[in-house]
C-alpha cells in the first residue's frame, strides 16, 4: 500500500473504445496503455493529434470510463472524489465562463475545490502571483487574450495546491516569455515535490521539463522511459566542416551531413561516438590536404527520437497490415 502511495497514478492496461455515429461505429482510442507516475517527477506525454493523450488524462479524472483495464489515482479508484481534491487539471483549451471575471472564476474553482473562505483568499493571491495574473483579476474572461486565458486555467489547476497536476498542452498559445515563465513554474512545482504530467507537442520544452516520457501513437505507447535512457548517449556523431581544393576520399561510414556550404566547403557526419574513429577520419582529411574549419558534436534530441520512433511504428504497422492481408488471402 505504501508503494502505491508513492505512485500517484497507476494505469494498468487501459483501453478505451468510443462508439460514434448513427451506425455505432467503434473507434479505438487507447489500447493496453500502462504507466505509472511517481511522486515528485515531471512526466511528458507525447504524441501527434488524436494519439489519445487527452483521453488518458480524462480517464485518470473519471471524466471518461475505460473500456478495459484498471488504475489507481492517489491510491483510490480512477476519478475518485477524495483523490480529485489533490489533483489539478488544466485542459488543452481554456474552457471558462466568458461572463465571469478572472477573480470570480478563481473564486468559483476554489468553492468547487472545497476550500474555506479564508483559505480561498490566500490561495487566489498565491496562484495569481505564481501565474502573474494579479492585474487581470477584475477583467472579464471574454476580454483576456489566449495567453492570459492559458495562465488562468493553469491558476485554476493550482488553486487547491494539488499533489498531482495533469496539464494538457500547458505551453500552447503562450508567447516565448510566458512559456519560459510556465516552464520555470513547473520546475519549481517539481522542486516542491509535486508530480506533473504534461502533454505537449513542443518537444524541446518537454525535453527541458520532463524526467520521463511516454510516446503515444494511435492509442499505443510505442516508447517510454527516462529521456536519458531513450536518447542513449545522446550522440549522433560529429559533424566536420572541411575546405578542400581537390576531391577527397573519406571512409564509407561518413555521410554528407548537409548541402555543400560553398563550392569548396562541405560538412560531413562521422557517426557514432568512438574517438578513435574520429581521429582516423581527421588524420585522413589532413593527409589529403583538406583544412578543417569546425568540429561539432551532434546530439540526438527528443525531437529526432520522436520522429524516428513514429517512423518506426508506422513502418511496423504497415508491415503488420501487409502480413494480415497475406494471411487473409
Amino acid at each position: 500500500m505504501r508503494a502505491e502511495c508513492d505512485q500517484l497514478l497507476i494505469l494498468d492496461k487501459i483501453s478505451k473504445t468510443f462508439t460514434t455515429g448513427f451506425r455505432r461505429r467503434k473507434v479505438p482510442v487507447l489500447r493496453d496503455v500502462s504507466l505509472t507516475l511517481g511522486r515528485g517527477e515531471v512526466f511528458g506525454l507525447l504524441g501527434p493529434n488524436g494519439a489519445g493523450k487527452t483521453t488518458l488524462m480524462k480517464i485518470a479524472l473519471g471524466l471518461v470510463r475505460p473500456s478495459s483495464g484498471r488504475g489507481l489515482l492517489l491510491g483510490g479508484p480512477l476519478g475518485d472524489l477524495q483523490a480529485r481534491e489533490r489533483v489539478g487539471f488544466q485542459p488543452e483549451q481554456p474552457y471558462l465562463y466568458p461572463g465571469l471575471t478572472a477573480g470570480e472564476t478563481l473564486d468559483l474553482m476554489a468553492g468547487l475545490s472545497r476550500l474555506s473562505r479564508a483559505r480561498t483568499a490566500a490561495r487566489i493571491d498565491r496562484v495569481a502571483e505564481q501565474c502573474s495574473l494579479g492585474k487581470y483579476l477584475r477583467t472579464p474572461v471574454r476580454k483576456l487574450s489566449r495567453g492570459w486565458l492559458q495562465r488562468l486555467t493553469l491558476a485554476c489547476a493550482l488553486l487547491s495546491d494539488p499533489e498531482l497536476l495533469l496539464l494538457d498542452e500547458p505551453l500552447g498559445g503562450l508567447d516565448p516569455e510566458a512559456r519560459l515563465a510556465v516552464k520555470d513554474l513547473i520546475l519549481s512545482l517539481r522542486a516542491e515535490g509535486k508530480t506533473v504530467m504534461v502533454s505537449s507537442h513542443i518537444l524541446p520544452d518537454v525535453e527541458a521539463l520532463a524526467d520521463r516520457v511516454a510516446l503515444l501513437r494511435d492509442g499505443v505507447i510505442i516508447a517510454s522511459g527516462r529521456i536519458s535512457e531513450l536518447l542513449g548517449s545522446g550522440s549522433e556523431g560529429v559533424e566536420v566542416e572541411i575546405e578542400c581544393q581537390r576531391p577527397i576520399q573519406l571512409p564509407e561510414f561518413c555521410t554528407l551531413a548537409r548541402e555543400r556550404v560553398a563550392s569548396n566547403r562541405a560538412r560531413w557526419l562521422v557517426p557514432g561516438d568512438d574517438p578513435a574513429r574520429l581521429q582516423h577520419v581527421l588524420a585522413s582529411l589532413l593527409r589529403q590536404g583538406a583544412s578543417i574549419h569546425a568540429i561539432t558534436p551532434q546530439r540526438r534530441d527528443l525531437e529526432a527520437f520522436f520522429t524516428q520512433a513514429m517512423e518506426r511504428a508506422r513502418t511496423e504497422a504497415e508491415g503488420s497490415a501487409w502480413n494480415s492481408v497475406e494471411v487473409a488471402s
Partner: protein
Amino acid sequence: MTIVPVMSLARHTFIDALRERAFVVLGLFLVVILVAARLLSPLALGEGRRVTLDVGLASVGFFGFLLVALLGTRMVHKEIDCKTILVLLSKPIRRSEFVLGKFLGLVTVVAVSLIAMLLMLAGILLTSGYEFDATLAVAGYYAFLELLIMAALAMFLTAFTSPVLSTFFLMGLFVAGHLSGSLIEMAQLLPNACAAKMLEAIFYVLPRLDLYSYTLEVVHGLPVDGGQLLWATSYAVIYSVGVLLLSVLILRSREFS
C-alpha cells in the same frame, strides 16, 4: 453532499446569468408590456384594475417561463457544448452537486426576477391608484413554485437534448401541464379501461401546473387557502426533486470526451 461547492456553483451561475444579454432583453420586454397594460387600462370601462392585474400577472408568469426556457434549457447543454463541464467535474464535485448547484443558480435568477417583476407590477398599480393586497405576493409565490417545476424540467431536458429540442419539449410540457387537470376527467369518460389507465399514468407524469393559477383569487381579493398553499408547495418540491434525481442519473451515465 457538501454545501460549499453547491453554493459556489449556484452563486456563480447566478452572476453569469445576470450578465446574459437575454436577461436584459426580457426585462425590457416586460417593462413594455406592463407600461402598455397601464396605458390601456383607462379604456377598460371601469375594469382597469382587473385588466392591469390580469395582464400583469400573466406577463409575470409568461416572462418567468421565457426566462427558464432561455436560460434553463441551455444550462447543462452549454456546459457540455463549451466543455466547461470538464473543468468543473475535474474538481472534487459530485454530479449530483453539479446539478443542484446549477439548479439553485437558475432558481435564484428566477426568484430575483419574479420579485423585480412583482415590484414593477405593484408600482404600476400604485401609480394608477388601484388597490392590491398580500394576495399579490401569494400569486408571486405560486408563480415561483410553477417556475421551480419548469426549471427542474429544463435541467432534466437539457441533460440529454439540444437547447432547441429542450425548449420545444418544455413548451409542450408547459401547455400540457396547465391542461393536465382535464386529463383525469377525460380518463373517466373513456370507455376503454386500458386507454383510461394510460391517460391516468400520463396525468401523474405530467406536472400539475393548473395548481398554480392564482390570478382569479388576486383579482377578487379572495382569502388565501392554507391547505392548498401547502399542497402546492409540497407538490412542487417533490416533483422538482424527482425530476432533478432523473437529471443526476442521466449525467452520471454520461462521459465527457
